[in-house]
């Protein structure tokens, strides 16, 4: 029997960077590719975010890594392992929290996590120890003996996260891990994600929640229509907006695009929101412009704030992220 995944030894191969090169996935030859030449790299100890609107090709990428879909061309490697050629190795090396809830209706929370540990190759004692540790750090011990069917969506999500990381492999894929999770436990979840990275795994996070990602990832890529449109650290992505402010103008639904004054650096309209980026020095001019729009009945209100990754995201994808919709 080979060595258990997740229990590596020192001294042989040092590079276990996760590399995707020129990955193309075509489902339907007449439509645009779901993944169109993706190239990215995630290193051990790093939390890497992949951001993009629905249908951008995020889950398609992850499913190709997990051996559920076959790439049309390109390569996916983890260190020396060719994950496209060897999907069985991929499943052993990669942990996966899918976007859908885990099928654990008839599992008690503790059993679900422990069994996931056993499936990942842990011994019963190790699985139990890691389960206790995770349940305590996520503060979900009170539901240890509750059946999945009776858990709230948020707690169930946390149990799913614990199942995916109870015996983490060299890379952990988390598809929208914070969905349904309440703000307090969301913080615990992010702390735990950081611990997984500190213990040496690479964490690959798929999300459309830009604000959360901005605070929590080391590097990120923005994907739109199958292509990576930008990649870097959160601050490097925002560097273009240095010295700028964002002004969001909520237009009257159905109103046409207003004439934009020359000082607007960039603007994107998403539904009836007009997201503009303006120079700090033009703030007073921008306020008068927005007030004018309200006075003339074209807009309902406006909000002025610091630029965030959200602005970069809107500019690159033409979409408001999950959190943007909540505002």
């Amino acid at each position, binding site marked *: 029997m080979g060595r258990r995944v997740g229990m590596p030894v020192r001294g042989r191969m040092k590079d276990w960077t996760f590399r995707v090169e020129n990955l193309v996935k075509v489902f339907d030859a007449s439509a645009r590719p779901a993944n169109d030449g993706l190239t990215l790299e995630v290193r*051990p100890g790093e939390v890497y975010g992949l951001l993009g609107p629905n249908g951008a090709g995020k889950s398609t990428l992850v499913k190709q890594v997990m051996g559920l879909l076959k790439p049309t061309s390109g390569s996916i490697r983890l260190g020396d392992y060719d994950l496209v050629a060897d999907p069985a190795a991929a499943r052993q090396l990669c942990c996966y929290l899918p976007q859908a809830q885990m099928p654990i209706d008839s599992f008690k929370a503790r059993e679900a996590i422990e069994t996931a540990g056993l499936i990942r190759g842990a011994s019963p004692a190790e699985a139990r120890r890691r389960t206790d540790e995770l349940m305590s750090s996520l503060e979900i011990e009170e539901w240890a003996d509750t059946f999945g069917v009776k858990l709230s969506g948020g707690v169930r999500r946390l149990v799913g996260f614990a199942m995916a990381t109870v015996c983490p492999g060299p890379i952990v894929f988390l598809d929208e891990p914070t969905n349904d999770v309440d703000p307090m436990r969301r913080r615990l979840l992010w702390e735990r994600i950081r611990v997984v990275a500190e213990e040496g795994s690479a964490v690959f996070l798929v999300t459309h929640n830009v604000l959360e990602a901005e605070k929590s990832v080391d590097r990120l890529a923005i994907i739109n229509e199958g292509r990576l449109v930008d990649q870097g650290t959160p601050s490097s992505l925002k560097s273009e907006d240095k010295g700028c402010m964002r002004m969001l103008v909520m237009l009257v639904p159905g109103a046409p695009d207003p004439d934009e004054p020359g000082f607007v650096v960039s603007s994107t309209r998403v539904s009836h929101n007009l997201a503009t980026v303006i120079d700090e020095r033009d703030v007073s001019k921008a306020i008068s412009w927005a007030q004018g729009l309200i006075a003339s009945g074209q807009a309902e209100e406006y909000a002025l704030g610091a630029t965030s990754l959200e602005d970069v995201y809107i500019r690159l994808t033409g979409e408001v992220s999950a959190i943007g919709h909540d505002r």
Partner: protein
Amino acid sequence: MTVDTSFAVDLPAKRSGAGSWVHSYAAMLRWETRGARLLLPLIVVVQILAGAGFVLGFGLLIPDIDAEMALYLSTGAVVMSLILIGLVLTPQVIAQQKMEGSYEFLWSLPVPRSAATMASVTLAAVAAIPGVAAAMLVAVWRYDISFVVSPTVLPACLLTLLCGCLVGSAVAHGVEEPQVILLFTQLAIFFIIGFSPVSFPIDRLPPWLATLHEFLPFHHMAVVVRSSLTTGMVRVAPIDWMVLVAWTVLAAVITGLVLVRRK
């Protein structure tokens, strides 16, 4: 930012070999058992009712049933229970996983496909026991007959069950649409109960259908199981076992192929 990789450790070796397979099988059996905990009692009750119902129902259909015929029909009920678990329940469970979205997660787990498949077959075998036992007990009670159980009963029942489960798995994994899988199970019920020589002798069928059944597994399932529970009622020939083994191997190969297929 630069990432500190000074702590980076070696990539673990891939797990393989018999020890790893057994560990995976045990873990998946635990997963399957826990996963079926809410549904299993219901399935067992339905199996018991179906097994007993077949036996009692034939008594209503044929009022002056003699011991010989009662024995034939009761052993038929046993075979029916074993076949339907594999060809109906197994595909239905897989269709359900596809509908609720857990199917892809299950096949992303780090276990050999064969270990996961055998874990679900094991659970199906356990689920089949109450139905088989109910059919036999009710037959003994209602018609006052006795079964002559030979040592081949275990291989006969297990092969019948395994063959049915693997054929059911091959179809359910091979067909993408859950609705189509469910349609298949409906047709299977219709064909097996109505037009397969399980509860009646094969010579009652029109010749062309009888010939077809020489190549299908159902008639041979009935022969091997019936011969292991009775004496002198049917003659089992090596060809019966061979056809069943061939179907089992074929279904296992197809299941294996469709499970590693990536779209």
